[in-house]
């Protein structure tokens, strides 16, 4: 048993994680649901009464109850993973990524899952952390609804279904991600 736990505690390679993501998508389809995480932000708006402000939120949130339960599961999955299934929380990113990130001023790239100086509890009231947390989150919420989907809906489900418009959306994801990483992020890190 200890051997099995130790085996699971290693980081999982892409060829384990990728197929399991397909399984999650298939399991949801089998239970009559469509894999899409960003829909929950819209459901949250509806539950908070946004239907009074815009027709966009006049939907029956109970039809999305399963998705909220699914999200609750993902949070629990994160807790289980951090508490019981992770022996070493460092991430073995490539040497070139470490060098690039050090060059823009990120300390100890890969020492933990996220850069502590930005996402650590003690630093979140700095201007830089607030820009990353509030600004980044806002763009994710606005952009996914505008594009009608995120990585799960477009990149995984949409491309699996060979949908042209999902491919267009994924091209957009990369235009934005590349522009941020290479042209804007070096300035945000220095805030």
């Amino acid at each position, binding site marked *: 048993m200890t051997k099995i736990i130790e085996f699971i505690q290693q980081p999982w390679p892409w060829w384990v994680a*990728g197929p399991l993501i397909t399984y999650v998508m298939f399991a949801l389809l089998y239970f009559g649901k469509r894999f899409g995480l960003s829909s929950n932000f819209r459901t949250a708006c509806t539950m908070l009464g946004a239907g009074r402000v815009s027709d966009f939120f006049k939907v029956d949130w109970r039809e999305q109850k399963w998705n909220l339960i699914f999200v609750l599961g993902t949070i*629990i999955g994160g807790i289980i993973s951090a508490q019981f299934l992770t022996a070493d929380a460092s991430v073995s990113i490539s040497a070139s990524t470490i060098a690039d990130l050090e060059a823009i001023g990120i300390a100890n790239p890969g020492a933990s899952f996220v850069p502590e100086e930005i996402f650590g509890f003690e630093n979140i009231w700095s201007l830089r952390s607030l820009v990353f947390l509030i600004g980044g989150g806002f763009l*994710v919420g606005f952009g*996914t*609804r505008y594009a009608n*989907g*995120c990585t799960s809906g477009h990149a995984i489900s949409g491309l699996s279904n060979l949908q042209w418009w999902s491919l267009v959306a994924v091209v957009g994801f990369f235009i*934005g991600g590349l*522009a941020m990483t290479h042209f804007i992020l070096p300035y945000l890190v220095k805030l």
Partner: protein
Amino acid sequence: MKYLRFLFIGILFGIVLSKGEIISWFRIQEMFRFQAFHMYGVIGSAVVLGVIAIQIIKRTHLKDNSGHLISMTTQEPGYARNLIGGTIFGLGWAITGACPGPLFILLGHEGWVFIIPILSAILGTFVYGVIYKRLPH
């Protein structure tokens, strides 16, 4: 309780994305710098298997557990909405290092700090819903 299955699938998804390091800010940076195969392997293998799975579903007319044909169109047509919306999301993805699923998983994995981007994403969705009629789609 019929919702319990979704809780378990969610737990599996949370563990897979944690253990696969897909929720790591550093892995997303590595992806947008094209410096490792890891993230491309994850998404690529998920999509290749997904294409096969959906072709099987369509060709065998597979039904879901309540007897309905499985259908799965998730797209809305339009270059403006998909390209501009996608780009805005991409900008946010590279800042937070997390798309919507990982934001929730990080809340469990790293702690309450991640409630901030989640609330902000809800706000972003709200603003979209208020102004969407004035945006090109």
